[in-house]
Each structure stands twice: as structure tokens, then as C-alpha cells.
């Protein structure tokens, strides 16, 4: 007689109890996966929002007056490859998502009617990969070479379908496809044009130069900004770090809140479900004591009885983990669409989490059946079989 077959037939025979146990795993797994997915989405969402508004840390040459970023076209520059030096440094971990930026005022841009406007040109370098940090999702949309994204106010002065045309430092005309017309209310960028860094450098004859790094400070115990500043200045003494605190705080608060929620709710639900399961398993082995007594009389070992109970918990844990994962992801997708604007469609099954839950839930459920399984395996067959049925 195949042991697995016995386990499955028993499990199907005692349907209600098995279903409740399965249900507890589904709840635990769905809640964990759902909350985790939502908190990931919330994190991404915050990042996206922040990218819209700018990252929380600005790194720029010492002595730069921040106000000049929007009004002057001669703020101090520094070499673009500083970014690579930072990204390649083993000790540099308090700052992430390093994006090199060249931002200059362009005093007389001619629209297609020939009238002149003052606009802001911003070149974005692709986000630097920090080799000694775990890989992370890129935060924003990088501007593709040869294209631009125009702010709402600039867009009004360019007919639909037309290219963006601008005179370069060398007096020649340059044209770019408009990849995106940005919506209104994005702050200074409403009157700005976003370039790929290399395009803007070429246009302005400023090859290899940037005047700002936008980045994200980590959440460190001894203060975001202090830590970041120390680390940056240890490598480049001529750079300064400034924090846009409201954005950083908002991001951090949201993250901490999600984490706090999860840190409370997930263990609470999982432990409740485990207790219910432990109780149901205890009832189950009580109901099966004659079966277990018989199996022992037939010469089955203590270990094989233990395994039989644990295997049942494993099977239910596995089935529940799979079901719960998809249920949790679906729920997260459903609510995510309501809550999040930018990331709504980007809530996808987190496959890493899937493999983890395939491991964690069966193991947890085996643990919760452990004591009942031990009791079952210690059944005194002589005593049990002497009782009246």
C-alpha cells in the first residue's frame, strides 16, 4: 500500500478538517503575499512619485547656490565619470540610484513661430549600477538617445507631431523626436526639456560634464544626510550633498508604515492560522487513534507514523501556499489598481516570493503539526486497540 495514497485518501475522507487546514494556509499565504506585494508596489510607487519630483539627495560641487540651477546657465560642473568612481566604490552604500544630470538654463529657444522663450534643459544619464550593492529596479524612465521629453509649457509651443528643434552651441540646428509630452504641474520641468545626457552634452559642447547627481539616500540609523555626506566627501572632497527633506521623509514614512503594518499583521495571521492547524491536527490524530494503533500493530515504525502526519501537513501547506500566492497576488492587483496611479499595472506576481512561500508554508505547517504528529507516533497500540471502538 502506497503511503502517499493512504495520506491523500485520508485527507479527502476527512474533508471538512482538511479544507479548514487548507483554508488557514491559503489565508496566511494570501495575506502575506498580498501585503508584501502591496508594500513592494507602494515602495515602487513612492519611488516613481519621487522621480517625478526629483530624487531626495542632490550632490553638486561645493559652493553651488542651488537657486542658480533654475536661473543661471553657468553653475559649476564636474566630470561625469565621478559617478562611476562612486558606483565602483565598495564603501559607498548610503546613497543609491545615482543619476548624473546636466541642467542648464537656455535663454532664447525659438518656437516654430519664431518667438523666443527661456527654457530649462535637463540631460539625464542612465542610472549607474552600483556594483557592490544588490541590484535594484531602475527608478525612472531614462530618456532614450535621440529623443526628448518636453514639459507641459514647452509642449504648448510645439505643434502635435512636430519635432523639437533647438540651436546648438556650434550654431547648428538640432532636431529630436518627442517621445513624451509631460503633463502639467510637474514644477520647474513644465518649462523644461529632458534629454539623454549625451545628447545635451553634445548640443551644448559640454562633453563629459555634469553639474548635479540626483540620488536616493538610504535609511540609516545615524541620519540619512550625515552618512551620505560623509561617504561622498570621503571620495570627492569637492562635492556637497543636500537633502530635499520633505520628499525623503514622505518616502521613508510610507515605507516604515507599510513595514510596520506587515510586521504586525503577517505574523499575527500566520500564528493564528498555525494554532488553528495545530488544534485541528490534534483532533485529527485523536479521531485516528485506532488507525494509528493498527498501523503500529502491523509493524509500522514510530518514524513512519510521524512522517505520515507531517506529510499530510506538507501537502496541505504546499497546496495552500500555491493557492494563497495567486489569491494574494490577485487581491493585491485588485486593490493596487485603486490605490496606486503609476504602478497600478505593474503589480505582477513576485516569483521570488512564490518560491519562498513554497518552502516556508509547508515547513511552517509541518511544524504546527509536529506535536500532534509526535503524540500520534507515540500511540500505545496495545492500549488503543484494547479500548471499545
Amino acid at each position, binding site marked *: *500500500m502506497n503511503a502517499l495514497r493512504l495520506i491523500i485518501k485520508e485527507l479527502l475522507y476527512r474533508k471538512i478538517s482538511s479544507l479548514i487546514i487548507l483554508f488557514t494556509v491559503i489565508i496566511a499565504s494570501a495575506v502575506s503575499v498580498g501585503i508584501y506585494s502591496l508594500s513592494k508596489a507602494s515602495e515602487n510607487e513612492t519611488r516613481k512619485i519621487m522621480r517625478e519630483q526629483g530624487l531626495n539627495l542632490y550632490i553638486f560641487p561645493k559652493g553651488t547656490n542651488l537657486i542658480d540651477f533654475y536661473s543661471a546657465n553657468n553653475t559649476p560642473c564636474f566630470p561625469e565619470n565621478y559617478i562611476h568612481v562612486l558606483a565602483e566604490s565598495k564603501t559607498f552604500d548610503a546613497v543609491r540610484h545615482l543619476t548624473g544630470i546636466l541642467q542648464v538654463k537656455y535663454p532664447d529657444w525659438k518656437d516654430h513661430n519664431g518667438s523666443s522663450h527661456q527654457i530649462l534643459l535637463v540631460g539625464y544619464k542612465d542610472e549607474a549600477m552600483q556594483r557592490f550593492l544588490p541590484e535594484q529596479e531602475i527608478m525612472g524612465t531614462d530618456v532614450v538617445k535621440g529623443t526628448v521629453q518636453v514639459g507641459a509649457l514647452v509642449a504648448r509651443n510645439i505643434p502635435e507631431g512636430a519635432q523639437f528643434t533647438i540651436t546648438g552651441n556650434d550654431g547648428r540646428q538640432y532636431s529630436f523626436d518627442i517621445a513624451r509630452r509631460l503633463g502639467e504641474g510637474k514644477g520647474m520641468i513644465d518649462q523644461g526639456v529632458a534629454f539623454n545626457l549625451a545628447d545635451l552634452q553634445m548640443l551644448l559642447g559640454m562633453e563629459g560634464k555634469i553639474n548635479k547627481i540626483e540620488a536616493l539616500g538610504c535609511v540609516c540609523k545615524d541620519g540619512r544626510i550625515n552618512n551620505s555626506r560623509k561617504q561622498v566627501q570621503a571620495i570627492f572632497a569637492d562635492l556637497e550633498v543636500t537633502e530635499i527633506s520633505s520628499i525623503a521623509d514622505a518616502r521613508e514614512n510610507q515605507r516604515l508604515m507599510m513595514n510596520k503594518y506587515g510586521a504586525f499583521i503577517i505574523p499575527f495571521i500566520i500564528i493564528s492560522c498555525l494554532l488553528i492547524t495545530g488544534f485541528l491536527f490534534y483532533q485529527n490524530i485523536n479521531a485516528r487513534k485506532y488507525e494509528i494503533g*493498527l498501523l503500529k500493530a*502491523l509493524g509500522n515504525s514510530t518514524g513512519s507514523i510521524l512522517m505520515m502526519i507531517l506529510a499530510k501537513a506538507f501537502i496541505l501547506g504546499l497546496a495552500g501556499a500555491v493557492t494563497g500566492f495567486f489569491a494574494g497576488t490577485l487581491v493585491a492587483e485588485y486593490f493596487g489598481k485603486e490605490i496606486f496611479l503609476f504602478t497600478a499595472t505593474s503589480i505582477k506576481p513576485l516569483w521570488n516570493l512564490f518560491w519562498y512561500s513554497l518552502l516556508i508554508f509547508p515547513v511552517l505547517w509541518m511544524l504546527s503539526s509536529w506535536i500532534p504528529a509526535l503524540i500520534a507516533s507515540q500511540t500505545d497500540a496495545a492500549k488503543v486497540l484494547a479500548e471499545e471502538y
Partner: protein
Amino acid sequence: MIELRDITKIYTRGSVTFTALKDISFNINKGDYCTVVGSSGAGKSTLLNIIAGLVHPDSGNIYYNRSDIYQQKAGDLNNYRRKRLGFVFQQFYLMPYLTVAENIRLACHNKQHAGKLDFYLGKFSLSGMGNKYPSELSVGEKQRTAFIRAIISEPEMLLADEPAGNLDPGNRSVLMNLIGEYHKNGGTVILVTHDPSMSEHSNISITLEKGMIQNNTMRVPSTQK
């Protein structure tokens, strides 16, 4: 084949101790049919469970083919039950979620045993019932299923504790005939009963009273020592 030497079993309930068996010694040879009779509480089941390797005696030894079964490793004791013994209980203990065939297969340890399933089903008028569940069986059919489970692995010794306790006279005589037939084919039987009339098939009859042997009769010399 099986040899009991000064077996004593003492049960303790709180501070009260109760001697269920005291200095029990006897031998059973291959092919013997032994009945253990005695009134309720005499210690019959305790004795049978000790022979079955299910209850450790407090003192004394029990040898199966000259090796002390309680001196061996737990795994060997399991194997002793699995390979050497067949059990017939007062209740049938059929798993309600397994079919007749599956219940019987619980006691099969190899393909050879499982291969005999149809033969036994046919022999005990259960052909075609292999896929039925216990709830669909009559008492007699359940009893025969449990009996096939007891003997399908061709155990050397059949242990039966009040096997007919719950049966009507018809089914009782069917069961006694099945046990008799197992014995005739060379099997060793130890049958526990409080009904002295059931010892008629046996060649050894042990009467227990208050945990001690009152009477140990050898009726007919066993033919297959």
C-alpha cells in the same frame, strides 16, 4: 518457537500498583494451536500484547526463535510484528477511507503478497468486492477482510484476542473455521478468549487467573514440532 520465561507485568496507576501477570512461563512450538482462557481481568490481553511486542514486560524474557524480542532494536521489533505476526482483533479496524483491497494491502510487504490478493478474495467469497469501502460491507465481509489482512503476508503466528467477541454464531463459526484452516496449513495460533468452549480446536490450553497460570493442558501432541 516462542518461549516465555518468568514474565511479570505490573501496571501502576498513580500510587496503586497492580500485578497483571506474575511469573508466567510456557513454550509454544511451531504449529501449535494455543488458547488462553480466563475470566475478565485475568491478564489474557496483556499476555498476548507482550507476545506481540506491544507491551514491555517488567521482568522476564520472551524469546522468539531463541532471540529475546525485547532486547532487540525498535526496528527489529517492528519487523517481527510485520513479518512474523498476524493479528485478529475483536474489532476489525478497517480504515474507512480505504477499499477492501487497499485495507488488505496495508499488510502486504512485497509484490508476492499483493499478488495473492485476488486469490484470497475469491477464497473468502469476496471476489468483486475489492473496490468496495468498509461501510458497504456486511459484518461477515468486514471480518473476512480483516482476516485476509491478518494472513496475507503469511505470518508464522496468528494472534487473536477475542476474535469472535462481537460476532453472531454464524460468523463466529466461519471465523473459527478460517483460523482452524490457517492452523491446518502449518500456522501457529494463539487465541485469547474468555469462553472455554472455544478451546476445542487447540492442542494447548492455558488458563489464566489473576495473572497466574492455573492450568496448562496439552491435549493432543502437536503434529508439527
